[in-house]
């Protein structure tokens, strides 16, 4: 309906995007530039639109973050043996907190590092598979779809701590998980089974997050695209690979990115489900927590900074390698070209009657 509003002249005005697409000629990098030109210039306009967000974020995040960086250079307050009191000032120790983490506490650190990485890779991988499958199923029309779609929200809507408790109960030595498999596994003891318990609980909780975002991504794909594809003679599998996936990729990538960031900071679930100080499931966040709860804020901040850097690197990699669609500068064009071409074709198709 909306599409019929498009006047026939659009193509010419749109710097030839359709023509470019149809002829298969590489798109001119100029693509969008200059097309929308506000009187005040896109730069100023953008500044105006972006600055509220940046302002809010710098107040709530930047300032505390800088404080944490600074704190990580200070050691814990010492005990004065004469008075029996903790000194009131923290000694400046430079980078020693970092050196200690990688040196003296190295074994524990690297164990936590690998656990964190392992959990992230496995859980996000499984979540992506399950989430995409969920979205594809939910995207089909069937009776009660709205109900089912709201239903899959449930795991994501349950507060993490409550779901931690729930799974702890399920994995109790006399809990329902053991009753179902008919064999007593002590899930919360050290070993691979503890990891499995955490992964099951985490994937259950967060697969719907990816499912929902991918579903929304599917919904914004114009139907005409599929029609065009069918005219082109693409089968269901071909449609999925060549149309659905490329078009839904941006939404999927953002969902995966946010899941990765969250998974790398995983804390509540292993802490509540399996417990503190269990080598099998200890994550970097748990190490930071351990320092903090023992009132060693410097080392705690150092762990937080290391974790931050790790997460930041992953995110940067994401933005560089895969995020072209998301960030959408000129490089993005190449990546999303195929999808756009199809859409352009589709637009053409709808325009014909007009």
């Amino acid at each position, binding site marked *: 309906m909306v599409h019929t509003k498009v006047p026939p002249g659009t193509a010419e005005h749109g710097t030839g995007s359709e023509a470019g697409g149809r002829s298969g000629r590489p798109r001119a990098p100029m693509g969008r530039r200059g097309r929308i030109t506000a009187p005040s210039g896109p730069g100023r306009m953008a500044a105006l639109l972006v600055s509220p967000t940046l302002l809010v974020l710098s107040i709530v995040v930047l300032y505390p973050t800088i404080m944490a960086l600074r704190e990580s250079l200070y050691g814990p307050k010492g005990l004065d043996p004469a008075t029996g*009191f903790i000194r009131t*000032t923290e000694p400046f120790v430079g980078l020693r907190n970092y050196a200690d983490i990688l040196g003296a506490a190295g074994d524990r650190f690297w164990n936590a590092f690998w656990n964190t990485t392992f959990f992230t890779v496995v859980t996000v991988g499984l979540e992506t598979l399950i989430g995409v499958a969920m979205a594809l199923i939910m995207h089909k029309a069937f009776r009660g779809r709205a109900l089912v779609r709201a239903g899959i929200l449930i795991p994501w809507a349950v507060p993490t701590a409550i779901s931690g408790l729930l799974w702890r109960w399920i994995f109790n030595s006399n809990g329902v998980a053991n009753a179902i498999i008919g064999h007593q596994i002590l899930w919360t003891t050290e070993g691979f089974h503890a990891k499995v318990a955490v992964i099951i609980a985490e994937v259950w909780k967060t697969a719907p997050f990816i499912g929902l975002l991918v579903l929304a991504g599917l919904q914004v794909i114009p139907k005409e695209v599929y029609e065009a594809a069918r005219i082109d003679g693409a089968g269901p599998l071909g449609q999925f690979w060549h149309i659905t996936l490329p078009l839904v990729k941006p939404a999927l990538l953002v969902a995966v990115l946010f899941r990765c960031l969250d998974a790398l900071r995983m804390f509540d679930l292993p802490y509540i489900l399996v*417990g*503190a*100080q269990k080598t099998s499931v200890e994550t970097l966040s748990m190490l930071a927590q351990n320092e903090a709860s023992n009132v060693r804020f410097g080392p705690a901040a150092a762990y937080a900074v290391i974790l931050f850097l790790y997460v930041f690197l992953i995110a940067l990699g994401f933005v560089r390698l895969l995020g072209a669609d998301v960030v959408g500068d000129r490089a993005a064009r190449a990546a999303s070209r195929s999808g756009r071409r199809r859409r352009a074709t589709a637009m053409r198709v709808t325009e014909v009657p007009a």
Partner: protein
Amino acid sequence: MKTRTTRAVQCSATLLAAGLLLTACGSSDGSGSGEQAGSTSFKGRGPITYAAGKDSSGVVQKVIDRWNQLHPNEKVTFVQLPTDADSQRQQMIQNAETKSDAYTLLSLDVVWTSEFAAHQWIDRLPADQFPLQKMLKPVVETAKYRGGLYAAPASSDGGMLYYRSDLLKKAGIAEPPATWSQMKADCAKVKKLPEGQGMSCYAGQFQKYEGLTVNFSEAVNSAGGVVTDANGKADVDTPAAKQGLDFLAGSFKDGTIPKEAITYQEEDGRQAFQAGKLVFLRNWPYMYSLAEKSKVAGKFAVAPLPGLNGPGSSSLGGHNLALSSFAKNKATALDFMKFFTNEDSAGTFLKDASLAPPYANLYDDKSLDQQYPYLPVLKQSILHAVPRPRVVQYGDVTSAVQQEAYAALSGSKDSAQALKDLQKALQNSTAQ
């Protein structure tokens, strides 16, 4: 002493919170509290607050209401903290690091006293203004740091041995066991009974959490060893301590303690006992009235914990009341502390919420024995109790204990090695 993870609800995250940036505020402004403990002047009257975990019995509010009626201009408000003990501690530390006066009085778990005192988050109290001589001695010790009184004992707690009196009687055993070997022998007899088929002998709290520190310390103390000596120095690599740890580790190995008990916290053990799976269980007094409503009602009794060569020693639980250094209206606060911890209030807490009182004579009250038949045993338990290590870095100490004890119990380390490693770890964290 509340369980670390059981009650973890949302709270776990708090811990994380606390940390990282408390810092930003407390770190290096160096001002500290200029006040040296001991020289606190308890000045100022007016409204104050009492910060503690939620009390579902409602008795705390009842006692506070009583006070508020008497002192309309010095009203006390109950600030409820999360149920999880770690979260409570974290909220209190956050409060101290921001030097906030939001909390006047803090309900401290007994093991936190040293840490809070050493950081000068709480004020030293005038010992002569509290009836300490009427209280059980080990309980008073938990409120002290380096000889000074930093908190007023409000409630106590001690471990007891729950046993199936019906089965023991049937097996022809008249007295509950006083030693570990007697316990094992009694158990063997019970298991020969038709009712004893498939039962396990003994359990405590062996999950890797604070409860394990309690159970490990009890085993070591009951064998005549110590975790830390009177001066707070680690002394756990001893033959006596090894006998204590060997009892637990050996019991796991020979099946005296069921395998799954490595995941037990208080409630799991209670469940197993109530379901008739255990002959003996180490647990706190709270379980008594609950078990009286279960399948084993009337079939069990309590005794002091057994030891190596005679009755053992319990660890101490309970809460003390402390005064935040950053609070206002300290004169009111001091008065309220005296009121809140006096014998009368302690009696109310016992009657309405079954909290073990710090006062010796309340245990001998015949009228209460009817309601709480376990009181005489509990008194013995607390009188012979040994506080858990009273050190500033208690968090590190308990972590190290849990780490090594868990390794020994789960069989991944032999007990000699575990104790050697523990000694080293404790020396590091108590060295400062």
